[in-house]
Every structure is written in structure tokens, then in C-alpha cells.
């Protein structure tokens, strides 16, 4: 393990074959992940902490008839492999029968997403991380600003094998960079960030420059009144909101009556137009802009899926059991998604706005009412007043209580989609590509003094 950063296909096959040969269960599935992670944090214009981590995890799922259980280890000596198999089998024998267990999948065919792996990312070293970050800290020092941020990358393999003959092995590399730059007097803060698969595509200096400009322009914000506002949302803010809806696509929860996507009287909303007809969202592991793993942890292929077409719900996420119960194909759940946009630029959205707010990103987004996908959160790191088609001054951050359903019904303009850093903690989240939007009647409920 020490000589190579993560498991090759050959090594993964050797281990999964060994585990399957040890299995005495009726069905067995082996999930293997092996990755090299690296990260560097910076704060107060210097590196603070960093890490380089090598790890692999092996999960064995055993089934005797309908009795199922699993066990995970990160040790790969033969004793540990035997132990993890025995543990999963011992647990499975004691488990009650699960009427929904459908056995394991045999050999499958997968989309080709070999392109999501880049040597440039796999070969990234701490020295290069430090040099890249210096392109941000130096700008901040020059402008008497305080920079903080996070650069993280992972390169590794995911593998699934079953006693029914399935073997899947996929490579993936990802990088995420975010920076928050604050003014020394603490009255201004700006942010920028994005994610890529290929380290060579990341322009950290440019991202730093955006955050520097936002920090400078956001100094000494003024109050605005809470209420319903027309907002120009940068792509990160849009992604923050639309993600909330994408996480609610469980067909089963909808059919069971405990989801926004439940239909009154029973069933779900597939086929119903529920948002603006310009909204189109799909997943596709083969689309280079939203590469994702070609298979899920059951070994089921993640295929191109249109979730929302012209504002109409076209598909929900069906696992194998729920699909069988409802005579549908299981969907898998490709982890990235792409929301199509329009031809309007951010500048045109601002120019067309008589009175509104420009939003950079959202923070501490938490569910308030699952019935309407109502969430609350706050604006952060770059919130500006737009008056008569121009940005006039920075404003204090605001708490909102809003649902992506309302937001996607109130679209006025759409721009070109871009890839964003979609997770609150700026970790290695799936690829999300979204357009900037101009939206009316976004609901803010109070002012925050936080900068």
C-alpha cells in the first residue's frame, strides 16, 4: 500500500476475489474504496493545518436467504479479511428476515467515465498546494486583507464485486478550492470557490482575485429591511437552494405520503409541472461537466436521467425494491446534476433590476418544514443592494425562510451554467452545474449583524 497511492484494478480484484472465496453466505457483496486525500488550509494569510491521508475501506455484505448484514474494515491482511467476512455472516445469521432484500446483481454494463480521473490531481503534492495558495495570500497581503481558505483533493478507486459475478472498478479524482477574504476592520468579507476533476483547470489566483474584490466592495454594509426581494443569485447560491430539492427525490418517500413530491390522495408528482417551464435538470455520469461514478454501491449502473424537463417532474429516485413494486426501472442515483440555463448575463440581470439584492452564497441551511421543502439560512460573504440597474452599496446579511419550489416558480432571468463548490463545508462533493438566476419575491425574515 505504501508504494502506490491507492489500489489498482488488479489489486482490487485480488482482494474482492479473496473475500468472495471466504464467503459462506448465499449472497455476498464487497464494496471497496481506496483513496489518497490531501488538503491544505490557510488562515491569517499563512498555512494553518494540512494533511495527507492514505486509506482504504472494505465492506462485506452477507445474506443467508433474506437475512442481511454488513461489516467494514480498513485492514487487508488475510486474518482481517476473514474476520470481516465472519462478522458480517454472524450478524446476518442473527438478523430478522428482510422481505425487501432482492439478492445481489450479476455482471452489468456501465457508462464510460474514465475521464473523471486526472493524473494532474493524483500527483498533487503539498509544495504545489502551498505555491497555489500563495497566489491568494499574496494578493490579500498587498490589499491589507486577511485571507482564509481550503484546498482539498482526492484521487482514488471505487470497486463493487458480488458473488453473482459482478465486478466494477472506477477511478475518480476531485479538487475543491474555496477562499474567504475579510477586511482588517472586520466590516467586509468576500468569497469565491469552485470544484474540478482536473487540477490543471483550477485557476486559484483568479478565484482569489474575485474574493479580494468582493471583500473590498462589501466594507461597511448598511441595513435593508427584511421582506420579499427580487434577487440576483450567483450560481453558488442557486446551487445551494436547488440541492435541497434534489435531495428530496426519493420515490418511496413520495409514494408513502411524506414528501413534497407526494401527490394529494396518493402516489407521486411524476408527470406534473410544478416549477417554471424553463427549468431542466439532468444527471449523466458521461457528461464531462458533471462526471460522477458510473455505478452505485449496489453495482447498479448510474445512467443519464432527466429529473425535470420543462418544469415537469420526469423521474424520482427508485431503488431496486421500490422499482420492482412499481414496475419501473431502478434509477441508481448519479451523484452530480446539471441545471440548464439561459442567455442572460449577470450584468444584464443587475441592469434590469430596479431594486434588488445580489447574493453570493448561503450559509447554515437547515430544514424547517419538509412538507414544502422549506429551509432557512443566511446570505454570506458578498451581499449587495441593486438600485436602478446598478450595485449601489453592500448590505447586511439576511436570514431567509424559503423553498426552492417557490424560487423555481419565480424565475425572471437565467444565465449560463457553471460548476460550483456545492457543499457548505467545501468538501469533495459531487459535481453540480447551475446557472445564475434572477428571481422575484425571495423571502427574507430578519437581518443579521454577522460579517
Amino acid at each position, binding site marked *: 500500500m*505504501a508504494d502506490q497511492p491507492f489500489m489498482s484494478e488488479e489489486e482490487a480484484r485480488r482482494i474482492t476475489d479473496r473475500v468472495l472465496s471466504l464467503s459462506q453466505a448465499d449472497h455476498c457483496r464487497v464494496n471497496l474504496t481506496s483513496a489518497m486525500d490531501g488538503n491544505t488550509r490557510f488562515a*491569517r494569510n499563512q498555512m494553518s*493545518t494540512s494533511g495527507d*491521508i492514505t486509506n482504504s475501506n472494505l465492506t462485506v455484505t452477507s445474506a443467508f436467504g433474506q437475512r442481511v448484514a454488513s461489516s467494514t474494515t*480498513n*485492514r487487508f491482511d488475510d486474518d482481517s479479511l476473514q474476520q470481516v467476512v465472519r462478522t458480517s455472516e454472524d450478524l446476518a445469521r442473527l438478523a*430478522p428476515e428482510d422481505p425487501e432484500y432482492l439478492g445481489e446483481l450479476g455482471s452489468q454494463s456501465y457508462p464510460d467515465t474514465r475521464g473523471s480521473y486526472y493524473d494532474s490531481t493524483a500527483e498533487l503534492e503539498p509544495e504545489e498546494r502551498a505555491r497555489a495558495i500563495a497566489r491568494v495570500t499574496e494578493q490579500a497581503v498587498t490589499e491589507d486583507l486577511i485571507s482564509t481558505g481550503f484546498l482539498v483533493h482526492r484521487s482514488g478507486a471505487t470497486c463493487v464485486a458480488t458473488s453473482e459475478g459482478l465486478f466494477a472498478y472506477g477511478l475518480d479524482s476531485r479538487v475543491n478550492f474555496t477562499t474567504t477574504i475579510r477586511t482588517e476592520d472586520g466590516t467586509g468579507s468576500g468569497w469565491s470557490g469552485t470544484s474540478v476533476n482536473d487540477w490543471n483547470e483550477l485557476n486559484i489566483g483568479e478565484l482569489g482575485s474575485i474574493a479580494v474584490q468582493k471583500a473590498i466592495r462589501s466594507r461597511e454594509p448598511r441595513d435593508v429591511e427584511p421582506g420579499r426581494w427580487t434577487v440576483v443569485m450567483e450560481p453558488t447560491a442557486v446551487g445551494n437552494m436547488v440541492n435541497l430539492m434534489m435531495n428530496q427525490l426519493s420515490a418511496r418517500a413520495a409514494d408513502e405520503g411524506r414528501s413534497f413530491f407526494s401527490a394529494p390522495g396518493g402516489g407521486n408528482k411524476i408527470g406534473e409541472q410544478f416549477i417554471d417551464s424553463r427549468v431542466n435538470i439532468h444527471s449523466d455520469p458521461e457528461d464531462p461537466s458533471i462526471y460522477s461514478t458510473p455505478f452505485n454501491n449496489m453495482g447498479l449502473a448510474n445512467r443519464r436521467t432527466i429529473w425535470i424537463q420543462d418544469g415537469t417532474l420526469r423521474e424520482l429516485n427508485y431503488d431496486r425494491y421500490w422499482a420492482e413494486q412499481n414496475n419501473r426501472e431502478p434509477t441508481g442515483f448519479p451523484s452530480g446534476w446539471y441545471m440548464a440555463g439561459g442567455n442572460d448575463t449577470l450584468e444584464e440581470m443587475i441592469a434590469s433590476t430596479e431594486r434588488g439584492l445580489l447574493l453570493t452564497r448561503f450559509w447554515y441551511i437547515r430544514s424547517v418544514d419538509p412538507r414544502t421543502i422549506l429551509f432557512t*439560512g*443566511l446570505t454570506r460573504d458578498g451581499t449587495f443592494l441593486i438600485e436602478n440597474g446598478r450595485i449601489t452599496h453592500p448590505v447586511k446579511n439576511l436570514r431567509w425562510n424559503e423553498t426552492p419550489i417557490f424560487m423555481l416558480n419565480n424565475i425572471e432571468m437565467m444565465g449560463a451554467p457553471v460548476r460550483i463548490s456545492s457543499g457548505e463545508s467545501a468538501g469533495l462533493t459531487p459535481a453540480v452545474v447551475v446557472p445564475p438566476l434572477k428571481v422575484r419575491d425571495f423571502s427574507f425574515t430578519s437581518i443579521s449583524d454577522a460579517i
Partner: protein
Amino acid sequence: MKRRDFLRHSAVAAAGLSVVGHPEALHGILSPAAYGPVAVRSDRRELAMRALEAARSAGADYADVRINTNRNQGIQTRERRVIGLSDNVTSGFGVRVLVGGTWGFAASSNATGDEVVRVARQAVAQARANRAAQRQPVELAPTEVEPDGVWRSPIRTDPFEIPIEQKVEYLFGANEAAMGVAGVRFVNSSMFFLREDKFYANSEGTVTDQTIFRTYPTMNVTAVSDDNSDFQSRSSTDIAPMGLGYEHVVDSDMMGLAPRFAEEAVQKLSARSVDPGEYDLVLLPTHLWLTIHEAIAHPTELDRIMGFEANYAGTSFIYPLEEFLGRFRYGPDFMNVVGERSTPGALSTAGWDDEGVKPQDYHIVKDGFLNDLQTTREQALWLGDWYRSQNREVRSHGNSYAQSWADVQFQRMPNINLEPFPDRDVSVDELVEGIDRGIMIDGSGSFSIDQQRYNSQYGGQVFHEIRNGRVTGMLRDVAYQIRTPEFWNAMDLCGGPSTYFMGGAFGDAKGQPAQSNAITHGCPATRHRNVTVINTARSV
């Protein structure tokens, strides 16, 4: 009367917690070697010394190493089905070094003699790479050397020794008790158990060996209206995760509480939607622990205050320090907030922190004023002037923690508790009696707070209207919004010791990469005047 049920339950829970510390019960019940640490103690010591020596030879001025094995078991059910059953182990080690005042950290799952040397050198090389941009070198506050420390969570029953069938039977029994209530359509329940063997050594001579247990039973009941037009859920937030063994599952009495959770989920379907406006609030400790977490515990993290978490968790309204320490009135005179890692069964309780420091109990808020902040060895020095002005020792409070061997340790909150009313045992009834128009909130729900910890919003599990000093019917769609300083200063009375309860959660996130912490906050019930309440219902 729900409130009395609650109080009876919390009193039972408190009594249960007071009897957990039987050290004589600990011997001979821990798991066999098959699931034990990555290596026996003497081997771990040898590996650790090898890593420290390799770091020193490569040029580290300071080094520490953690060799951990973490075993967890999870059982998830819904109604009469087990939907997840797993038993997992992860082990490995992490080496942290200081080279010329810059940190480096590397980790590997492969705890062998050659790999600890490689990883120690990797950590040193990384520190050298980071040093190029150094502006202010890291220094560490002095601490006592502990050459052979041993500590174990005060459990009575090792959860990994309890047969799976017994655990499944317990959850199915609780599910059945909930499903027996008319109107309930779904119930999910689970148990989670953790055992972490944590071996620590540093280049100053400290060596500690700790075994930490955590146990978390949970339940969520959902009621759906007959025509599928509405659904409401009730989570078991009265049952906290604890640093205890299987006895916590038994003491939590999920089976006994399940019918109440179920009835409350059903009642929420027909409860009256709240009129927005200003209300006096009585916050039961099953709810309040989370508000304390967000609006006291997080803003008093010193790394956050100094800007180290600005890119994610944020900074704090507590800045600059000289204007706040000893001067900022957090709340009324009776408000005392203590940070500690000593309460038996609380989740942060430990013998030593993750940089070998014996934790202290300390007042974060004393008699209403901000008195101290959460620190590690690196951070304690930043408070040197304040401590010297108070004739206090300049030392870490022992608040360093890492979620696993693969993550670098940094400042994480200890158990942070609001102390009960000091002068007499104020009851919840007394808090309610002083209110004309108010709401009593039971259980923690939705929560969100800004990055400087001013503006926050909280939901709950169950809301009861208070009219003319009496608890009346149930409300729904309630969330309250606060600004931290005003909210605590609007607390005009809090409950006494008989209302005290320790709440908590897994999954408190901080740091990048985000690390998850397990938190406990003890508190009494409180009363707050004139708080803004919004209605969260929407029609789509």
C-alpha cells in the same frame, strides 16, 4: 400532562446518570482482542516511539502521534423491518509535527514500523512546504507530562457484548409501541454504538491510552393525514447520545416513551398554526441544549474568534478580545456557563485531550459576564495577558480533539453547560406561572445561525401555548428568531437542579476537511421575554 411526564423522565435520566460511575464494574467486560486496538499496548508504544523518533530525525521540533482503532455498530429499523445492520472497524495512525513553528500532519491506515517512519517524514516535509508562507510561528503553552495515563468511559455494560437479537427485539418493541397509536403510519428507530481505542504519545514524554464508548438510541415517528395532504414527525430528542454503555439504552426507556412520541406526532396534524409575533418562551432543557450549543458554545471557540475558521464555520461576535473578556454581559447575574470534560457519561468527557492535556473545568460565563474561552495549547498563549491580569495560569483547557486517526486534532468544544438557578430549585411550573402569552418548547428541531453567531432560528419537537400562567393546547409551525446578546439578557429566570438535563448530538461539524464531534450540553429549563416567533407553514 405532558410537562409533568417530561419532568419525571428527566429526573429519571438525571438519576440514571448519577450512578454510572462504578469503576469496579469496568474490569473484565471489555471486548476481546478480535476487535481490540490495532496492536497491543506495548506494540503501539513501540510504533509511537518510532514515529516520534523519525519525526525528530527529520527535523521536527515537536511531534505527536495518535494510534486509534474505532469500532462502531449500527442497527436501523423501520416498523417491523431491519433496514441496516453493520459492524465496522477502522484503524490507523496520524503524526502531527511542528517544524520551525509550522504544522504538518500525515496519516495512514497501515500501522507498521516502516509506514510510521514514512508518514512521520511526510508530515515533516509537508510542514516545510507550508513554512514558506509563514508569518507568525506556532508556539505551545506548557503542560504537565503524563508518562503512562489510562482512562476508560464509565460504562456498566459493553454494548458490543449484547446480542444483536436483543437489540433488534428492543427496537421492534419500541416501534410496535409507537405503531399502536392510531394515526401513526411510519416509525424509524436505531441504535448506534462506538468504541474507540486511542493511544497518544508526544515528543515531550506524555503517553496516554484511552478507551471511549458512545451509545445513541433514536426514534422518529411520522403521522400522515388520511388524504396524504399533510404529515408530521416527532423525533426522540429527549433521548440524548451519551458516553455510556448499553445501560443507556435501557435507562432511556424508548419503549416507554414511544407512545408519547407517537401521540404527539398525531396531535401535531391537528394542532393550531401559530400566530406570528412576540412571545415569552419557556424552553425545556430537551430543547435548550441546542440553543446553548449554537449561541454560547460555538462563539466562545478561540480559533474561530481569531479567524482560523472564517472560510467555513465562521468567526464570532466576540471580538476584539479586550472589549469582551470580563466586560461583555452575556446574560443576567444568575447565568453561569461551565466548560468541562469531567461529567461521567457526557460525550466530551475524557482523561486527556488529543494533545495530551488533562482537561480543566472552567467558567466561560461567570455571574453573567464572559470569563474565558475554549483553548488548545497553541491558543492558550493568545490569552496570556488576560490570564495574567486575573492571576490565572496560562495553560490549555484541554479542548483539542480529532474525529479519527485520519484527521488532524484542533480545538473542539468540551461539555458546555448552563448551570441551574443558584439560589433555589425553581420549577417549570414557576417559569410558566409568570407568563401571560407564551410558548413552551419541548425537544430540539430545526436550527440555523449566522457565521458570527448573532442571528439564529430554532424550531422544536412539540410546542404548547401558555395563556395566563397555564400551559394550554398544542401549537405547530413555530420557529423563534434571536440575536444572541439580547436573547440571553432577556432570560429573566431559569429552572433549578430538578429541571436539569443533559442533551446532545453526534455530528457537530467544524474544520476543513469537516470533522464531526459528539457534544453534550447540560442545562435547566429557562424563561425568555419577548422573543420573535415566526410561522413556518407555506402552501404550495
